[in-house]
């Protein structure tokens, strides 16, 4: 009986087009949209080579420091090329700026001046770089002055100044003070979007569980009525229905994983067993949610689906599906909300596998999911016990 029901339950689930659309196709489509929209976002936030212009007048050509420094910063073979410079006259610089072809231009008259259209990042960098060049000149003057005052010179003054200048310039290039970059290599925040997608799919699995359980409920389907009057063990039947929906759910999740890993290049971290553990626990949470909604509410199937979808979408929203900032805002300002949100438990689990080096946060999420599932199952058992109908 167990196997018989399992087989037919699987068949009916796979033949339900709406069900397969929401739990199989929709996550794949949404994942593709995410990929198309977000694949470039982190690259476009990185510093690009900035187009600027310099007014090529006499004053600029006389200022060796500015001329040399900007030439170095725009050399195409330089490792850290910062600018792409056009040397033009004032009228053309103005036109270029007007047509948004450059971020700004440098005009040297009595003192250097930066002209930009609006205030922004590229404009700020142009300003800062120009300032740094002028400040470095100031440093050289100060140091030479100090050395002239404090040392007794033997030999010609020009030679001495030349030496100090060269020393100082080499110091500007190499600092004895060290900065160490200790950033983690895994900082890709768009990954969160895909984690919420997996989480959403896991909980949408609840729809599958709910549909399967409806087949066994006397008040939901004719099939259920027949089962209710038949002399079979109800626990066996319900359990095999749940197992079949769990199988359908896992297959859907597996397809989604394959698609996101191989086609969309999503990074789930390297801990394979933990990823499986989290997916199975997440699916269990979805299944138990579907079971609870299916048994507790005495309403029609569409409304039950509506409840599961609304619950999952709200959870996805709070865990960052429509903008990852939302997850951070909730996590820092109202942590209890996301600690109770099963979508976030799954999302946060993947996040901690990807970004964290320790497993405390991961296990916390796994345990939360298990507790959530347990509560849902207990509620369903209470609702299912001793169901009897005199008439329906």
């Amino acid at each position, binding site marked *: 009986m167990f196997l018989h029901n399992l087989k037919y339950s699987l068949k009916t689930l796979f033949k339900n087009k709406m069900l397969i659309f929401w739990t199989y196709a929709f996550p794949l489509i949404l994942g593709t949209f995410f990929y198309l929209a977000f694949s470039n976002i982190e690259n476009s936030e990185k510093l690009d080579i900035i187009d600027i212009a310099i007014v090529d007048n006499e004053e600029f050509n006389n200022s060796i420091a500015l001329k040399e420094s900007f030439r170095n910063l725009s050399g195409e073979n330089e490792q850290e090329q910062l600018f792409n410079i056009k040397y033009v006259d004032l009228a053309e610089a103005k036109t270029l700026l007007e047509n948004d072809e450059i971020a700004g231009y440098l005009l040297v008259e009595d003192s250097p001046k930066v002209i930009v259209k609006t205030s922004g990042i590229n404009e700020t960098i142009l300003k800062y770089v120009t300032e740094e060049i002028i400040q470095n000149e100031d440093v050289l003057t100060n140091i030479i002055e100090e050395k002239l005052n404090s040392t007794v010179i033997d030999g010609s003054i020009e030679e001495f100044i030349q030496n100090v200048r060269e020393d100082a310039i080499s110091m500007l290039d190499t600092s004895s*003070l060290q900065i160490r970059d200790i950033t983690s290599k895994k900082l890709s925040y768009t990954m969160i979007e895909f984690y919420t997608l997996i989480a959403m799919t896991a909980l949408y699995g609840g729809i599958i569980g709910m549909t399967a359980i409806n087949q066994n409920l006397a008040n939901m389907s004719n099939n259920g009525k027949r089962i209710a009057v038949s002399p079979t063990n109800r626990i066996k039947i319900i359990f095999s229905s749940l197992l079949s929906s769990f199988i359908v759910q896992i297959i859907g999740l597996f397809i989604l994983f394959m698609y996101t890993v191989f086609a969309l290049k999503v990074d789930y971290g390297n801990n394979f067993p933990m990823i499986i553990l989290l997916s199975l626990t997440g699916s269990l949470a979805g299944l138990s949610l579907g079971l609870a909604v299916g048994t507790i509410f005495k309403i029609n199937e569409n409304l039950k689906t509506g409840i599961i979808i609304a619950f999952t979408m709200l959870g996805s929203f709070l865990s960052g599906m429509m903008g990852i900032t939302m997850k951070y805002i909730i996590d820092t300002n109202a942590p209890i909300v996301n600690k109770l949100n099963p979508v976030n438990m799954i999302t946060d689990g993947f996040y901690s596998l990807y970004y964290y080096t320790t497993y405390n946060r991961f296990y916390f999420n796994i345990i939360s999911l298990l507790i959530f599932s347990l509560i849902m199952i207990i509620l369903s058992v209470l609702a299912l016990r001793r169901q009897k109908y005199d008439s329906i």
Partner: protein
Amino acid sequence: MTVFKTFSQVLNKYKATVLMYTVMLVLFGGLNFKTSDNNVNFTASKPDVLIINEDENIGITKDFIDYLSEYTNIKDIENNEDSINDALFYRDVNYIIYIKPNFRESILSNSPNKDEQFKQLISSSDRTIVEIKTTGDYQASIADMLVNKYLHLADIYSNTFEDENEIINHIQKTLSLEVETELTSKVDTNTLSQVTFYYNFLSYSVLAGCVYVICLILSSFKNKEINKRTIISSMNYKSFNLKLLLSNCLFAIVLWLIYIILGFLLVGSIPTNYLIIYIINSFIFTICSVTIAFFISNLINNKNAINGIVNVVALGSSFLCGAFVPMEWLPDFVLKIAHVLPSYWYIKTNELLKGVEVFNSITLKPIITNMLVLIVFIIAFVVLTNIVTKLKLKK
């Protein structure tokens, strides 16, 4: 009139669902507008920085922190490693600076007249005085420049001068040399980019709202019995379609008005000439959404499929055309595909409008062209709908 009456009766029947859906979209537009505030305005030139000072806050260490406070936004985050790492991951800060305990001592030990033995002792030890974590984006690059600049100055001046105050004074004096910067544009780009973001997002809400509600209502007209009665009536199918379309437009215009009013409440005032174009553009797009919805509803017969179609159509065109993620951040090939979708032309106009300074024939030309493309889409969808209806009638 008969058609419109029936339409309003059906609308009345579904009013709870329609109202709930509309409220949800409106809320979503409003909420998203506020929370996304940070992401869109990447024009702010002060990076968000977190400083973790493990040294004493005196002398040159204090001066370094004061300097950073002047040129960056110092963030205050709970001092535990997890919160700090989370803040970096979610881009709450762009740059984290750990000032090591040996910061001040290492800089001052450069001093020219210090005991040689002491110098050697220091130079043999770890010379890392600052550790950083960076998101590697634009803002972080600025923070990087600022930190490097200060440490260079500190290094050079501490090699030349002995007294800490003298070093600090020289650093401050050098840093106070600024370059004059002149702004040529008088347009308030900040508000305009916010308005543009709002109107771009509106394309999702309007499209989703129209497709969902119109498909829902029209599915009642698709009921076999009702459909048969409509067909045998004396009304021509073209005239029937037109009347139905006009009734739908009425609903859509109400929806559109709600969003325009919400826009006023959220964003406040912008120059009238900009506002007029934003409003005209969104109006044309709303009508276009109606014709899309009308076309889709003529294609499908299954009421259960509506939800799926709404999500695929509305989310699809919003993601591909830049309603959620700004157009300039989308990959080129996505934008090429997007050309076939009406949302692209609508959003393109909003983006163009953001950069306009003077309204003349040159700046207005591309905007008007985009609007014309939208109108062509409207006509195309109406014609297609009629073709579909005719084909179905022949069957």
